[in-house]
């Protein structure tokens, strides 16, 4: 019988009660006394020199409180970048300034030029129209290779070129990789684009700044995945406000997908402006603004070569990627195409020699940063597409080629610096073949053929590095922050528990899953336990939620803190039971003396901790509250195998996804239903990337796909019912829960399966197509069929 309690129980998400009844408290629900509204006047040219900004007419308009421009930020810091990459030649990346409001130049459509603070939103907007801008349009660089060409317009005049860095990894392997490719029995080459995406969380970004001049304290309410990171970056680098005078609150947040990790100009602005005008300032993004101010994702152009020996063993892999940074370096942008991408290029395979070169490029486009998976989807897509193409070229079964090259011994040190602790790629592939009913595919293909359709089956594997990560390692790799997490377990007098966690829940269901862990450890009911998150004044510290790290890192901190609580509680119980501490056992919420019928329940011990009348005060302090910081010793390595079955209409090029299966290894699972939901959402976004989504700029740097009329998000009829399984669990060896993380897997593992399936379908119709770039719109597929 499935568990209904503790670790492994599919408990319903308790947070959904408020979300589904309209009682969530989002940032836009926060309205403060005396609040003003800000409207950002944004650039509508991609690149231009600001000759003048005349705000005089606008300032005289009704309701206008104050208008700010770049000049008001003289002497104030710019938005910092949280990761420094060192290039192939040992030099630090080129790091341009990133002003809160544009100074001197505008560098992308959407770059904020002026901020109008007024009594109402409408007044702010009206006043923006009265601002007279004299902006001299400059040639824009949009295409990455053109941006690197001699004589290209420079996005940042103070830099030597538009090249942020030229990174090689592992540089020492380069010659050996070149040699191996030269001597290979077969080399498969593939050039591909990992399309630029816009995250589109359901809730657009919002920021409310408040200033209390009685105690000189600033508060920022914001739609963030990591309020402490924002406090650190904004306080220390932008506004110079010490931590004890700055509180950052991220209440209910309606989806993040990475794009709400970063510290944005609007957050710094409302905090700054509230101090200046001594009134709260609120900004609510419109959907149109979100398209041109939320950091975008992906946008890599890659050439990959896979070398094989005569027996089809992989001998070397060489990749060359151009990665778009956009106009400025967003918070973690430099890490995405490098350490979150290059280190994953071994995939699930024993390829002994790997080299990748990444050129990160500035263009006059919205900054690009992490989006669900961040670097790992790009790595997975390259590997799994090139392996599939190799199988096709060699005339071997793509599953067999993968199986033949799987890593089977763990721990496994890859040639790209990471060590996989556990995994069982054969098991997930076996499971995939079973749940996908692959043996029935031939018959299903015949059925499709009878209808005049081409049916294809695509398979891929993935590996990802999650639970980001050991601070000492990421520090060596250029991170400017540690990546531990923290939790405080506060046990109240009557035995109920508040857990203050550094992870932030914006769809992940922490309020449900985290209590399940503590309930299991202590043996009390989950209803006794609440999670507190998202407020820097309430939680000890935390690096937030991204990189599928919440349970693996913050959950581990919570386990450590709970262990400390239990140790102390046992001391109290030993005193109450007049027994030796070593003999005390905790089971089902009851402390008992081993081998006797003497016991005291959980609430009896917690009450004693707060009403210490009969208490070992000489040995321990009253109260029952513990904090732990947890810094993992390695990443975690979830892995899996995915399959997709499609039907292509050869007349129109329309692709219908009929079947999709995912066999994942997430290690131990706390709440199977929530894990399944995470996988579903990830696959939907992966299918979105593969089939529908693309951020398109024209040659002048105008974002053309800037509304839902032109940016196609997946809808219910674009996705099939998913078959998901996570029974092939090899627990993580280095965290106390043995968990690996499941948040990004679906988005990482699904795009190659879709493309492989379409290529397979076309092949069945006699059209051997090497590759089709995503999204696989009917037009592109039709062109591939008819070329």
């Amino acid at each position, binding site marked *: 019988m499935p568990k209904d309690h503790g670790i492994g129980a599919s408990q319903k998400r308790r947070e959904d009660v408020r979300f589904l009844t309209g009682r969530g408290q989002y940032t836009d629900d926060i309205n403060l006394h005396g609040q003003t509204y800000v409207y950002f006047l944004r650039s*509508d*040219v*991609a690149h231009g020199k600001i000759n003048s900004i005349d705000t005089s007419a606008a300032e005289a308009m009704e309701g206008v409180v104050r208008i700010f421009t770049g000049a008001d930020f003289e002497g104030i810091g710019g938005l910092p970048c949280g990761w420094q990459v060192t290039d192939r030649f040992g030099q630090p990346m080129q790091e341009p300034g990133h002003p809160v409001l544009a100074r001197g130049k505008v560098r992308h*459509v959407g770059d904020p030029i002026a901020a109008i603070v007024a009594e109402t939103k409408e007044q702010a907007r009206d006043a*923006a129209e009265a601002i007279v801008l004299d902006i001299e349009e400059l040639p824009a660089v949009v295409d990455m290779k053109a941006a690197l060409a001699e004589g290209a317009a420079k996005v940042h005049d103070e830099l030597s070129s538009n090249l942020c860095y030229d990174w090689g990894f592992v540089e020492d392997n380069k010659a050996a990789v070149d040699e191996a490719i030269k001597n290979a029995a077969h080399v498969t080459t593939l050039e591909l684009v990992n399309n630029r995406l816009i995250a589109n969380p359901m809730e657009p970004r919002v920021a409310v700044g408040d200033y209390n001049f009685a105690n000189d304290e600033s508060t920022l309410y914001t739609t963030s995945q990591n309020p402490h990171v924002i406090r650190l970056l904004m306080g220390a680098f932008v506004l110079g406000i010490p931590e004890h005078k700055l509180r950052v609150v991220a209440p209910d947040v309606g989806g993040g997908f990475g794009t709400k990790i970063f510290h944005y100009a609007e957050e710094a602005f409302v905090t700054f402006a509230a101090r200046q005008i001594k009134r709260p300032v609120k900004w609510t993004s419109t959907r*149109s603004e979100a398209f*041109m101010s939320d950091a975008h994702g992906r946008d890599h152009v890659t050439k990959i070569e896979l070398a094989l020996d005569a027996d089809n063993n992989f001998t070397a892999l060489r990749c060359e990627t151009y990665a778009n940074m956009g106009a400025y370096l967003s918070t973690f942008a430099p890490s995405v195409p490098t350490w979150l991408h290059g280190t994953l290029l071994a995939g699930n395979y024993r390829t002994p020699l790997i080299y990748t070169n990444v050129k990160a490029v500035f263009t006059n486009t919205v900054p690009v940063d992490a989006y669900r998976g961040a670097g790992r989807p790009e790595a997975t897509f390259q590997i799994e597409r090139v392996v599939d193409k190799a199988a096709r070229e060699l005339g071997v079964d793509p599953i067999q080629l993968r199986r033949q090259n799987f890593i089977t011994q763990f721990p496994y040190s890859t040639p790209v610096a990471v060590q996989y602790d556990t995994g069982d790629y054969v098991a997930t592939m076996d499971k995939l073949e079973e749940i996908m009913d692959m043996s029935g595919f031939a018959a299903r293909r015949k059925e499709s053929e009878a209808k005049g359709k081409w049916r294809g089956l695509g398979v891929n594997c993935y590996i990802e590095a999650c639970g980001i990560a050991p601070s000492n390692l990421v520090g060596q790799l250029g991170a400017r922050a540690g990546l531990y997490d923290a939790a405080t377990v506060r046990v109240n007098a009557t035995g109920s528990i508040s857990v203050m966690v550094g992870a932030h829940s914006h769809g992940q269901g922490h309020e449900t899953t985290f209590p399940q862990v503590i309930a299991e450890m202590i043996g009390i009911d989950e209803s006794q336990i609440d999670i507190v998150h998202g407020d820097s004044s309430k939680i000890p510290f935390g690096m937030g939620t991204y990189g599928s790290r919440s349970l693996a890192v913050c959950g581990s901190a919570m386990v450590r803190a709970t262990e400390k609580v239990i140790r102390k509680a046992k001391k109290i119980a030993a005193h109450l039971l007049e027994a030796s501490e070593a003999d005390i056992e905790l089971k089902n919420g009851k402390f008992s003396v081993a081998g006797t019928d003497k016991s005291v329940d959980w609430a009896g011990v917690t009450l004693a901790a707060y009403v210490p009348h009969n208490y070992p005060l000489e040995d321990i302090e009253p109260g029952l509250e513990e904090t732990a910081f947890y810094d993992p010793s390695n990443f975690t390595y979830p892995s899996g195998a995915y399959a997709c079955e499609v039907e292509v209409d050869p007349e129109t090029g329309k692709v219908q996804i009929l079947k999709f299966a995912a066999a994942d290894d997430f290690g131990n699972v706390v709440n199977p239903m929530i894990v399944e939901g995470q996988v579903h959402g990830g696959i939907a976004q992966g299918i979105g990337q593969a089939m529908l989504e693309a951020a398109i700029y*024209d040659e002048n740097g*105008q974002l*053309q796909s800037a509304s839902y009329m032109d940016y196609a998000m997946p809808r219910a009829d674009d996705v099939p019912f998913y078959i998901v399984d996570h029974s092939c669990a090899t627990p993580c060896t280095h965290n106390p829960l043995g968990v690996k993380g499941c948040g990004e897997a679906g988005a990482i593992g699904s795009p190659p399966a879709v493309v492989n399936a379409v290529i397979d379908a076309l092949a069945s119709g006699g059209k051997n197509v090497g590759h089709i770039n995503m999204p696989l719109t009917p037009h592109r597929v039709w062109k591939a069929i008819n070329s």
Partner: protein
Amino acid sequence: MELSDSRVIKASPDAVWAAILDPEVLKACIPGCQEMAGSVEQGFEATVVQKIGPVKATFKGAVQLMDIVPGQSCTISGEGKGGPAGFAKGDAKIKLTPQEGGTLLEYAVEAKIGGKIAQLGSRIIDGVARKLADEFFAKFQSVVEGPAEETSDEGGEATEKKGWLKRIF
């Protein structure tokens, strides 16, 4: 975005040329033009109301005639700012060639849009631009050629029809 086309205007090149230089003619022909002031030498200030896809806006901007070769060719260059709707700018290169029965007017338009109209209307901008150019030159043609019944056979038929209808009623 680029488009080019040509049409034959039943008037002499000199008459066509004079019309191009006449702000009143331009005002009458630019679709949605509300105001137009200025001169060929100084350039014109124009206010144009346009709807592109879901965005309707008033564009204020400057129109200039450049590269003038009297009686033969010129470039009409315009730039309009539509406030929150964004901007539109473009050049229309115009060439006149005498031809039997009138003047061949060839034009090549290059247009650029930005801001909200680019974000929301880029899918339909080509169609919109073609329609606007058509409207402009059709109007221009009718203004230069004068009332249809005086010059064209078709016009003649229409006049006849009118007369015929009149007889009925």
